[in-house]
Protein backbone atom coordinates (compact mmCIF):
# COMPACT_ATOMS: atom_id res chain seq x y z
CA UNK A 1 0.00 0.00 0.00
CA UNK A 2 0.98 3.64 -0.45
CA UNK A 3 0.66 5.50 2.83
CA UNK A 4 1.17 9.18 3.68
CA UNK A 5 2.21 10.03 7.22
CA UNK A 6 1.70 13.70 8.11
CA UNK A 7 3.93 14.70 11.03
CA UNK A 8 7.42 13.37 11.61
CA UNK A 9 7.67 13.65 15.37
CA UNK A 10 8.34 10.72 17.65
CA UNK A 11 5.05 9.06 16.77
CA UNK A 12 5.10 9.81 13.05
CA UNK A 13 8.69 8.67 12.59
CA UNK A 14 8.06 5.43 14.54
CA UNK A 15 4.97 4.73 12.47
CA UNK A 16 6.84 5.41 9.23
CA UNK A 17 9.51 2.98 10.40
CA UNK A 18 6.97 0.23 11.12
CA UNK A 19 5.04 0.76 7.88
CA UNK A 20 8.19 0.84 5.77
CA UNK A 21 9.47 -2.27 7.58
CA UNK A 22 6.22 -4.03 6.70
CA UNK A 23 6.92 -3.37 3.03
CA UNK A 24 4.60 -0.41 2.42
CA UNK A 25 5.50 2.59 0.30
CA UNK A 26 5.63 5.59 2.67
CA UNK A 27 5.83 9.37 2.25
CA UNK A 28 6.32 11.52 5.35
CA UNK A 29 5.27 15.20 5.42
CA UNK A 30 6.56 17.73 7.94
CA UNK A 31 7.20 21.48 7.88
CA UNK A 32 10.33 21.17 10.03
CA UNK A 33 13.39 19.90 8.10
CA UNK A 34 15.04 18.86 11.37
CA UNK A 35 12.25 16.39 12.06
CA UNK A 36 13.50 14.20 9.20
CA UNK A 37 16.68 13.52 11.16
CA UNK A 38 14.64 10.89 12.97
CA UNK A 39 14.32 8.86 9.78
CA UNK A 40 17.62 9.47 7.95
CA UNK A 41 18.28 5.71 8.02
CA UNK A 42 14.97 4.95 6.26
CA UNK A 43 16.18 5.29 2.68
CA UNK A 44 12.97 3.86 1.21
CA UNK A 45 10.79 6.51 2.86
CA UNK A 46 10.11 9.70 0.86
CA UNK A 47 10.28 13.01 2.68
CA UNK A 48 8.25 16.07 1.79
CA UNK A 49 8.86 19.43 3.40
CA UNK A 50 5.51 21.21 3.80
CA UNK A 51 2.60 21.81 6.10
CA UNK A 52 -0.12 19.19 6.21
CA UNK A 53 -2.90 21.76 6.40
CA UNK A 54 -2.08 22.87 2.85
CA UNK A 55 -3.94 21.05 0.06
CA UNK A 56 -1.07 21.66 -2.34
CA UNK A 57 1.42 20.00 0.00
CA UNK A 58 -0.85 17.00 0.44
CA UNK A 59 -1.38 16.75 -3.31
CA UNK A 60 2.37 16.91 -3.82
CA UNK A 61 2.80 14.12 -1.29
CA UNK A 62 0.51 12.00 -3.44
CA UNK A 63 -2.82 12.32 -1.61
CA UNK A 64 -4.68 11.76 -4.89
CA UNK A 65 -3.28 8.26 -5.32
CA UNK A 66 -2.48 7.10 -1.79
CA UNK A 67 -4.32 4.20 -0.15
CA UNK A 68 -4.14 5.60 3.36
CA UNK A 69 -3.27 8.80 5.20
CA UNK A 70 -2.37 9.21 8.84
CA UNK A 71 -2.43 12.64 10.51
CA UNK A 72 -0.05 12.61 13.48
CA UNK A 73 1.17 16.19 13.93
CA UNK A 74 1.22 17.45 17.51
CA UNK A 75 -1.84 19.69 17.02
CA UNK A 76 -5.25 18.05 17.38
CA UNK A 77 -7.04 20.63 15.27
CA UNK A 78 -4.46 20.31 12.51
CA UNK A 79 -4.93 16.54 12.51
CA UNK A 80 -8.71 16.92 12.41
CA UNK A 81 -8.41 19.35 9.50
CA UNK A 82 -5.93 17.14 7.63
CA UNK A 83 -8.16 14.09 8.08
CA UNK A 84 -11.17 15.98 6.69
CA UNK A 85 -9.13 17.30 3.77
CA UNK A 86 -7.96 13.79 2.94
CA UNK A 87 -11.47 12.40 3.08
CA UNK A 88 -13.44 15.20 1.46
CA UNK A 89 -11.04 16.59 -1.11
CA UNK A 90 -8.79 13.65 -1.95
CA UNK A 91 -11.27 10.85 -1.21
CA UNK A 92 -8.58 8.81 0.54
CA UNK A 93 -10.06 5.46 1.57
CA UNK A 94 -8.33 4.95 4.90
CA UNK A 95 -7.80 8.00 7.07
CA UNK A 96 -6.79 8.05 10.72
CA UNK A 97 -6.02 11.04 12.95
CA UNK A 98 -4.13 11.22 16.20
CA UNK A 99 -5.75 13.34 18.90
CA UNK A 100 -4.17 14.02 22.25
CA UNK A 101 -7.20 15.39 24.06
CA UNK A 102 -9.59 12.55 25.01
CA UNK A 103 -12.42 15.10 25.20
CA UNK A 104 -12.42 15.44 21.38
CA UNK A 105 -14.36 12.16 21.24
CA UNK A 106 -17.86 13.54 20.59
CA UNK A 107 -16.50 15.97 18.03
CA UNK A 108 -14.75 13.22 16.05
CA UNK A 109 -17.88 11.13 16.13
CA UNK A 110 -19.97 14.01 14.74
CA UNK A 111 -17.47 14.70 11.97
CA UNK A 112 -17.07 11.01 11.21
CA UNK A 113 -13.31 10.96 11.74
CA UNK A 114 -11.51 7.79 12.75
CA UNK A 115 -8.99 8.63 15.44
CA UNK A 116 -6.58 7.19 17.94
CA UNK A 117 -6.02 8.94 21.26
CA UNK A 118 -2.58 8.07 22.70
CA UNK A 119 -3.46 9.78 25.99
CA UNK A 120 -6.49 7.54 26.45
CA UNK A 121 -4.54 4.44 25.39
CA UNK A 122 -1.76 5.24 27.87
CA UNK A 123 -4.25 5.97 30.65
CA UNK A 124 -6.00 2.64 30.00
CA UNK A 125 -2.69 0.77 29.93
CA UNK A 126 -1.51 2.40 33.16
CA UNK A 127 -4.82 1.62 34.80
CA UNK A 128 -4.62 -2.02 33.70
CA UNK A 129 -1.04 -2.28 34.94
CA UNK A 130 -1.95 -0.81 38.31
CA UNK A 131 -4.95 -3.09 38.64
CA UNK A 132 -3.01 -6.23 37.83
CA UNK A 133 -0.50 -5.06 40.45
CA UNK A 134 -3.26 -4.79 43.04
CA UNK A 135 -4.47 -8.24 42.11
CA UNK A 136 -0.96 -9.55 42.95
CA UNK A 137 -1.03 -7.69 46.26
CA UNK A 138 1.60 -5.19 45.08
CA UNK A 139 1.29 -1.45 44.35
CA UNK A 140 2.00 -1.90 40.63
CA UNK A 141 4.52 -3.89 38.64
CA UNK A 142 8.22 -3.68 39.37
Amino acid at each position, binding site marked *: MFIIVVGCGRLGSSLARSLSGAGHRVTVVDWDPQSFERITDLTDVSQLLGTGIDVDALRQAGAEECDALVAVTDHDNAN*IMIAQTAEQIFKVRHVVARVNDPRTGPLLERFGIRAVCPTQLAADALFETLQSGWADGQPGQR
Partner: protein
Amino acid sequence: MLMYVIVVGGGKVGYYLAKTLLAEGHEVAIVEREEKICRKLELDLGDILVHADGSTPAGLELAGAGRAQVLTAVTGQDETNLVTCQVARTFFNVQRTIGRINNPKNETLFRLLDAGTAVSSTQIIAGLIQREVDTRHIQKLLPLATGKVNLFELDMIESSPALGKAVADLSMPPGTLLVAVMRAGSVIVPDGRTRLLKGDRLIAVAQSDREEELARLLFGAEA
Protein backbone atom coordinates in the same frame (compact mmCIF):
# COMPACT_ATOMS: atom_id res chain seq x y z
CA MET B 1 -30.31 44.56 14.96
CA LEU B 2 -28.10 43.97 17.96
CA MET B 3 -26.63 40.51 18.27
CA TYR B 4 -24.68 38.26 20.54
CA VAL B 5 -21.32 37.69 18.83
CA ILE B 6 -18.68 35.24 20.03
CA VAL B 7 -15.11 36.05 19.04
CA VAL B 8 -12.72 33.12 19.36
CA GLY B 9 -9.10 34.22 19.69
CA GLY B 10 -7.88 37.18 21.72
CA GLY B 11 -5.03 38.29 19.48
CA LYS B 12 -4.91 41.66 17.76
CA VAL B 13 -7.66 40.81 15.28
CA GLY B 14 -9.94 39.49 18.03
CA TYR B 15 -9.27 42.44 20.28
CA TYR B 16 -10.01 45.15 17.72
CA LEU B 17 -12.94 43.20 16.32
CA ALA B 18 -14.49 42.94 19.80
CA LYS B 19 -13.86 46.63 20.44
CA THR B 20 -15.53 47.58 17.16
CA LEU B 21 -18.55 45.35 17.79
CA LEU B 22 -18.95 46.63 21.35
CA ALA B 23 -18.88 50.21 20.11
CA GLU B 24 -21.75 49.34 17.78
CA GLY B 25 -23.74 48.10 20.76
CA HIS B 26 -23.48 44.34 20.21
CA GLU B 27 -23.06 41.88 23.03
CA VAL B 28 -19.63 40.29 22.68
CA ALA B 29 -17.65 37.49 24.32
CA ILE B 30 -14.02 36.72 23.57
CA VAL B 31 -12.95 33.11 24.03
CA GLU B 32 -9.23 32.84 24.67
CA ARG B 33 -7.14 29.82 25.70
CA GLU B 34 -4.27 31.70 27.37
CA GLU B 35 -5.15 32.94 30.83
CA LYS B 36 -2.54 35.71 30.70
CA ILE B 37 -4.10 37.20 27.58
CA CYS B 38 -7.56 36.96 29.18
CA ARG B 39 -6.45 38.93 32.23
CA LYS B 40 -4.78 41.56 30.07
CA LEU B 41 -7.80 42.07 27.78
CA GLU B 42 -10.14 42.18 30.76
CA LEU B 43 -8.46 45.35 32.01
CA ASP B 44 -9.54 47.12 28.86
CA LEU B 45 -12.71 45.36 27.73
CA GLY B 46 -14.25 44.38 31.05
CA ASP B 47 -15.99 41.17 31.92
CA ILE B 48 -16.39 39.69 28.45
CA LEU B 49 -13.50 37.21 28.47
CA VAL B 50 -14.11 33.47 28.58
CA HIS B 51 -10.99 31.52 29.45
CA ALA B 52 -11.45 28.33 27.42
CA ASP B 53 -10.47 26.47 24.27
CA GLY B 54 -12.96 27.79 21.74
CA SER B 55 -12.41 24.91 19.33
CA THR B 56 -14.07 22.45 21.73
CA PRO B 57 -17.77 21.93 22.46
CA ALA B 58 -17.06 22.45 26.18
CA GLY B 59 -15.33 25.78 25.53
CA LEU B 60 -18.14 27.12 23.35
CA GLU B 61 -20.74 25.88 25.84
CA LEU B 62 -19.03 28.02 28.47
CA ALA B 63 -19.32 31.03 26.15
CA GLY B 64 -23.04 30.39 25.65
CA ALA B 65 -22.77 29.53 21.97
CA GLY B 66 -26.33 28.22 22.00
CA ARG B 67 -27.71 31.75 21.96
CA ALA B 68 -25.10 33.36 19.68
CA GLN B 69 -26.26 34.75 16.34
CA VAL B 70 -22.70 35.02 15.05
CA LEU B 71 -19.43 33.29 15.83
CA THR B 72 -16.16 34.40 14.38
CA ALA B 73 -12.92 32.45 14.76
CA VAL B 74 -9.90 34.71 14.40
CA THR B 75 -6.96 32.88 15.96
CA GLY B 76 -3.77 32.80 13.91
CA GLN B 77 -4.28 29.14 13.05
CA ASP B 78 -6.41 28.13 10.06
CA GLU B 79 -7.00 24.67 11.50
CA THR B 80 -8.27 26.01 14.83
CA ASN B 81 -10.56 28.49 13.08
CA LEU B 82 -11.97 25.77 10.83
CA VAL B 83 -12.67 23.34 13.66
CA THR B 84 -14.14 26.14 15.81
CA CYS B 85 -16.60 27.11 13.08
CA GLN B 86 -17.54 23.47 12.54
CA VAL B 87 -18.15 22.91 16.25
CA ALA B 88 -20.26 26.07 16.47
CA ARG B 89 -22.46 24.96 13.58
CA THR B 90 -22.83 21.27 14.35
CA PHE B 91 -23.08 21.39 18.14
CA PHE B 92 -24.72 24.76 18.74
CA ASN B 93 -26.48 25.46 15.46
CA VAL B 94 -24.93 28.93 15.18
CA GLN B 95 -26.34 30.30 11.92
CA ARG B 96 -23.53 32.60 10.91
CA THR B 97 -19.91 31.53 11.37
CA ILE B 98 -16.91 33.38 9.99
CA GLY B 99 -13.39 32.01 10.05
CA ARG B 100 -10.15 33.85 9.45
CA ILE B 101 -7.73 32.01 7.17
CA ASN B 102 -4.15 32.67 6.12
CA ASN B 103 -4.02 30.23 3.26
CA PRO B 104 -6.62 31.37 0.67
CA LYS B 105 -6.94 27.77 -0.54
CA ASN B 106 -8.59 26.83 2.73
CA GLU B 107 -11.66 28.68 1.53
CA THR B 108 -12.57 25.61 -0.53
CA LEU B 109 -12.37 23.44 2.55
CA PHE B 110 -14.60 25.83 4.51
CA ARG B 111 -17.23 25.58 1.80
CA LEU B 112 -16.88 21.84 1.37
CA LEU B 113 -17.19 21.18 5.09
CA ASP B 114 -20.04 23.66 5.50
CA ALA B 115 -18.03 25.61 8.07
CA GLY B 116 -19.38 29.02 7.05
CA THR B 117 -17.61 31.99 5.50
CA ALA B 118 -13.85 32.13 5.26
CA VAL B 119 -12.13 35.50 5.28
CA SER B 120 -8.61 35.62 3.96
CA SER B 121 -6.64 38.80 4.54
CA THR B 122 -4.02 37.35 2.20
CA GLN B 123 -6.64 37.11 -0.53
CA ILE B 124 -8.00 40.59 0.13
CA ILE B 125 -4.56 42.20 -0.08
CA ALA B 126 -3.60 40.15 -3.13
CA GLY B 127 -6.89 41.18 -4.75
CA LEU B 128 -6.24 44.85 -4.11
CA ILE B 129 -2.75 44.56 -5.59
CA GLN B 130 -4.16 42.71 -8.57
CA ARG B 131 -6.64 45.53 -9.15
CA GLU B 132 -3.77 48.01 -9.30
CA VAL B 133 -1.90 46.09 -11.95
CA ASP B 134 -4.88 44.75 -13.88
CA THR B 135 -5.12 46.41 -17.26
CA ARG B 136 -8.57 45.06 -18.01
CA HIS B 137 -11.42 47.51 -17.79
CA ILE B 138 -13.56 45.23 -15.69
CA GLN B 139 -12.75 44.58 -12.04
CA LYS B 140 -14.36 42.23 -9.58
CA LEU B 141 -15.25 44.21 -6.46
CA LEU B 142 -17.08 41.77 -4.26
CA PRO B 143 -18.27 38.20 -4.43
CA LEU B 144 -21.85 37.66 -3.25
CA ALA B 145 -23.39 34.32 -2.26
CA THR B 146 -19.89 32.76 -2.17
CA GLY B 147 -19.08 33.86 -5.69
CA LYS B 148 -22.27 32.78 -7.50
CA VAL B 149 -22.87 36.46 -8.18
CA ASN B 150 -20.23 39.19 -8.30
CA LEU B 151 -20.21 42.95 -8.06
CA PHE B 152 -18.16 44.55 -10.84
CA GLU B 153 -16.66 47.89 -11.61
CA LEU B 154 -16.30 48.76 -15.30
CA ASP B 155 -14.71 51.77 -16.93
CA MET B 156 -16.25 53.17 -20.11
CA ILE B 157 -13.47 53.53 -22.63
CA GLU B 158 -13.30 55.19 -26.02
CA SER B 159 -13.53 51.93 -27.94
CA SER B 160 -16.52 50.57 -26.07
CA PRO B 161 -19.34 49.50 -28.40
CA ALA B 162 -21.79 50.66 -25.69
CA LEU B 163 -20.51 54.23 -25.68
CA GLY B 164 -23.26 56.82 -26.20
CA LYS B 165 -26.01 54.20 -26.00
CA ALA B 166 -28.95 54.32 -23.62
CA VAL B 167 -29.18 51.46 -21.13
CA ALA B 168 -32.47 50.32 -22.67
CA ASP B 169 -30.76 49.82 -26.02
CA LEU B 170 -27.89 47.81 -24.59
CA SER B 171 -29.73 44.49 -24.28
CA MET B 172 -27.98 43.57 -21.06
CA PRO B 173 -27.56 39.78 -20.80
CA PRO B 174 -29.99 38.01 -18.46
CA GLY B 175 -28.47 37.54 -15.01
CA THR B 176 -26.75 40.94 -15.12
CA LEU B 177 -27.83 44.34 -13.86
CA LEU B 178 -26.36 47.81 -14.06
CA VAL B 179 -26.79 49.31 -10.60
CA ALA B 180 -24.86 52.59 -10.63
CA VAL B 181 -23.04 54.98 -12.90
CA MET B 182 -20.38 57.18 -11.36
CA ARG B 183 -19.87 60.32 -13.38
CA ALA B 184 -17.89 63.42 -12.46
CA GLY B 185 -18.00 62.79 -8.75
CA SER B 186 -21.70 61.98 -8.51
CA VAL B 187 -23.57 58.71 -8.56
CA ILE B 188 -26.48 58.07 -10.90
CA VAL B 189 -28.81 55.13 -10.39
CA PRO B 190 -29.48 54.42 -14.05
CA ASP B 191 -32.77 53.76 -15.78
CA GLY B 192 -33.41 52.82 -19.40
CA ARG B 193 -32.81 56.37 -20.63
CA THR B 194 -29.38 56.82 -19.03
CA ARG B 195 -26.69 57.14 -21.68
CA LEU B 196 -23.22 55.78 -21.09
CA LEU B 197 -20.44 58.30 -21.64
CA LYS B 198 -16.72 58.08 -21.90
CA GLY B 199 -15.11 58.16 -18.46
CA ASP B 200 -18.16 56.72 -16.71
CA ARG B 201 -17.44 54.14 -14.06
CA LEU B 202 -20.18 51.54 -13.94
CA ILE B 203 -21.14 49.26 -11.08
CA ALA B 204 -22.84 46.06 -12.18
CA VAL B 205 -24.03 42.80 -10.68
CA ALA B 206 -23.56 39.64 -12.72
CA GLN B 207 -23.97 35.91 -12.26
CA SER B 208 -20.59 34.25 -12.56
CA ASP B 209 -21.59 32.45 -15.78
CA ARG B 210 -22.58 35.78 -17.39
CA GLU B 211 -19.41 37.75 -16.69
CA GLU B 212 -17.89 37.19 -20.11
CA GLU B 213 -21.08 38.19 -21.91
CA LEU B 214 -21.24 41.40 -19.92
CA ALA B 215 -17.62 42.18 -20.67
CA ARG B 216 -18.14 41.54 -24.39
CA LEU B 217 -21.21 43.77 -24.47
CA LEU B 218 -19.36 46.69 -22.96
CA PHE B 219 -15.89 46.26 -24.36
CA GLY B 220 -16.30 44.17 -27.51
CA ALA B 221 -13.11 42.39 -28.53
CA GLU B 222 -11.05 44.29 -25.98
CA ALA B 223 -12.77 42.59 -23.02
